[in-house]
């Protein structure tokens, strides 16, 4: 299927910032006056001649792309990159300032589950209400009604107002309706962030089925890079409103994560006087050295990491020096704390290192803290959160993309064996 089903050309979106009030009314009047009497020529808003006024924002600049029928396209980018704005334009909720999008077939968007649910109405009524808001016809809903109810698993509560539902039930019903939409193009924004893990799995399975078996086109924004990798065959990387790259999901996600991980993995201080430390210790170098797996340049859960540090040792008395290193999550939970053997050192440079093996850390953001200890009893210098790095997820042969539980993620073998009867 090599048909272009959707084509976006030079899409830009301009927002005027600031409060709407007396002042904006004055500006409106001035604008109207100018327009009415053509005082100054055509001042067209144009993304290319921005005067970078703090009062305006180009949420999208000159985005063009084509999407083939049957493509499952993932949109990646940081918060504020313009992903949501683009989805809003594609869903016709807001207009582009410049550019056009042309397409074929019915388009349905799921920027939220349960849009238009009425709390006072029963589950049954809401299935019809929400379904029709999302663009289904009544006949279609009648045809799929039993399927929707079965998928949601709320049979018993079908005639209860949804305001009495638990939030889980509410979301399940809402997604069940959405999952039975049957458009040629489906737009989905982060809906995977809802529901319990079982239900997420069901939803992703359904999405895969829709795209693979029914040849539907899906446009999909998610922060879950695993889900994107497994579901999408194409990805678009947005940054600050511009389209950075478009291509195969694997490449785009790899590049995107590399970009995300661009925090310095190395800190070097050449001047001891300016380096962090005190009269006993001055730091010279701190570094995380990853041993990348399959040339990916991304730290993921498989990557062994070597933490190296160098410091000037300036003892005022003879002591046994030990260094303890702890790894903490960004939330401040300590994952582990390891220490060196305490021993005497001469004044001068001291080097240390510790290797964290691959397949130990779970995915997440971590920081390293060092404590320098005198005679295994008291700290002479503490260096907190001196290095930080992200560990990305990596999975193979699984249909489960939810968060992997656990503080750590070792690859201990779990063995199964068939017992003979």
């Amino acid at each position, binding site marked *: 299927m090599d048909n272009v089903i959707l084509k976006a050309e030079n899409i830009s979106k301009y927002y005027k910032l600031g409060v*709407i009030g007396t002042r904006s009314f004055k500006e409106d009047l001035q604008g109207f006056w100018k327009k009415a009497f053509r005082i100054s020529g055509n001042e067209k808003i144009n993304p290319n001649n921005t005067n970078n006024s703090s009062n305006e924002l180009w949420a999208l600049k000159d985005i063009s792309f084509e999407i083939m029928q049957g493509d499952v396209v993932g949109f990646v980018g940081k918060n504020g990159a313009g992903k949501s704005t683009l989805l809003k334009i594609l869903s016709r*909720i*807001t*207009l582009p300032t410049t550019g056009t999008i042309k397409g074929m077939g019915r*388009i349905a*968007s799921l920027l939220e589950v349960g849009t238009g649910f009425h709390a*006072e109405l029963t589950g049954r009524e809401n299935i019809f209400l929400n379904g*029709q808001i999302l*663009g289904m016809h009544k006949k279609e809903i009648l045809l799929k009604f039993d399927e929707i109810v079965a998928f949601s698993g709320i049979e018993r509560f079908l005639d209860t107002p949804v305001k009495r539902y638990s939030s889980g039930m509410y979301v399940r019903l809402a997604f069940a309706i959405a999952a039975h939409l049957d458009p040629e193009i489906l737009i989905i924004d982060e809906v995977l962030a809802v529901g319990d893990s079982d239900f997420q799995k069901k939803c992703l399975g359904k999405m895969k089925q829709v795209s693979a078996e029914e040849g539907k086109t899906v446009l999909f924004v998610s922060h879950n890079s695993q889900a994107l990798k497994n579901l999408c065959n194409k990805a678009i990387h947005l940054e600050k409103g511009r389209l950075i790259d478009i291509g195969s999901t694997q490449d785009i996600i790899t590049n995107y994560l590399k970009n995300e991980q661009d925090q310095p993995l190395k800190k070097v201080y050449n001047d001891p006087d300016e380096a962090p430390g005190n009269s006993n210790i001055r730091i010279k170098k701190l570094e995380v050295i990853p041993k990348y797996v399959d040339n990916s340049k991304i730290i993921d859960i498989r990557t062994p990491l070597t933490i190296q540090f160098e410091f000037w040792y300036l003892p005022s008395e003879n002591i046994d020096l030990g260094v303890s290193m702890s790894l903490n999550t960004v939330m401040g939970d300590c994952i582990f704390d390891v220490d060196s053997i305490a021993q005497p050192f001469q004044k001068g440079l001291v080097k240390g290192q510790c290797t964290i093996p691959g397949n130990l850390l779970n995915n997440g953001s971590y920081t390293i803290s060092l404590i320098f200890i005198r005679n295994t009893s008291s700290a002479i210098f503490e260096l907190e959160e001196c290095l930080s790095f992200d560990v990305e997820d990596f999975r193979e042969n699984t249909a489960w993309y939810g968060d992997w539980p656990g503080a750590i993620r070792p690859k201990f073998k779990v063995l199964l064996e068939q017992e003979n009867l």
Partner: protein
Amino acid sequence: MDTEEKEDIKLNWQWEISPAKSWFKMGLIDLYAYRGLILRFVRRDLIASYQQTIIGPIWIFLQPLFTTLIYLIVFGNFAKVSTDDTPKILFYMSGTIIWTFFFDNISGTMYTFITNAHIFNKVYFPRLVVPVSNIITQSVRLSIQLVLFIIIFLYYYIFFDKFQLSISLFLIPFLILLTATFALGSGLLIAVFTARYRDIDTFFQYILRLGMFITPVVFPSTIVPQKYQFLFWLNPLTPIIETFRSVFFHQNAIQYNYLLIATAEAIFLLILGLILFKRREVEVMDII
């Protein structure tokens, strides 16, 4: 790819999103495609408004009945405002149900964007679906109230031999349509402006409250001084309510010339409202 092929593909596009807007689109064809959704909204509003009540839809009867009774006591008995020799209950009721129909239509329409922002921000459908479904909901209520009115009317007709029925009864559906047209047109215009500046909404709430006193709801238009008569009749609701009363009570002759002016006013407002609403319906979402 050669040009011929390119042209071929261009012709196949089924829809297009672009900043271009036409001055002449009112979106009425779209609306027909979304008739299912319109009826769904009507159903939602009718069901939801009487959930968790004891007497449920009977309220549709009780609301105009209570209002009528209060007017009857306050204006009829305390203030002794003339009702042109019409039975008081029928006089106040005719004013009340038409005024309420107008009021509910216009206030439902003018808050279209504000009350539905959460839906409009997530899903596209022609925004006109919402005010139109509101009009239909209100029409259902009005029809039920008219039944009550006719029952009381028949009571007077049969037992007091008061009125005669005439061919002009056929004007009633037209009057209802005219009220809806006027309310929808002005409501759409206000909706477009309230989305940007909320002052306009406060201002119109005030105007609406005053509106009842420049409309013959609780008094007949005959008590308005002669020099204000022309202005008074320019309010489209004046000929609407007066014609309604003339059709049933025959106290005054139907003023067809003013009815014609009212029709022109309502149609003008509706066309202007539809065009502006269509033009602004998407842009409004960036500022609401």
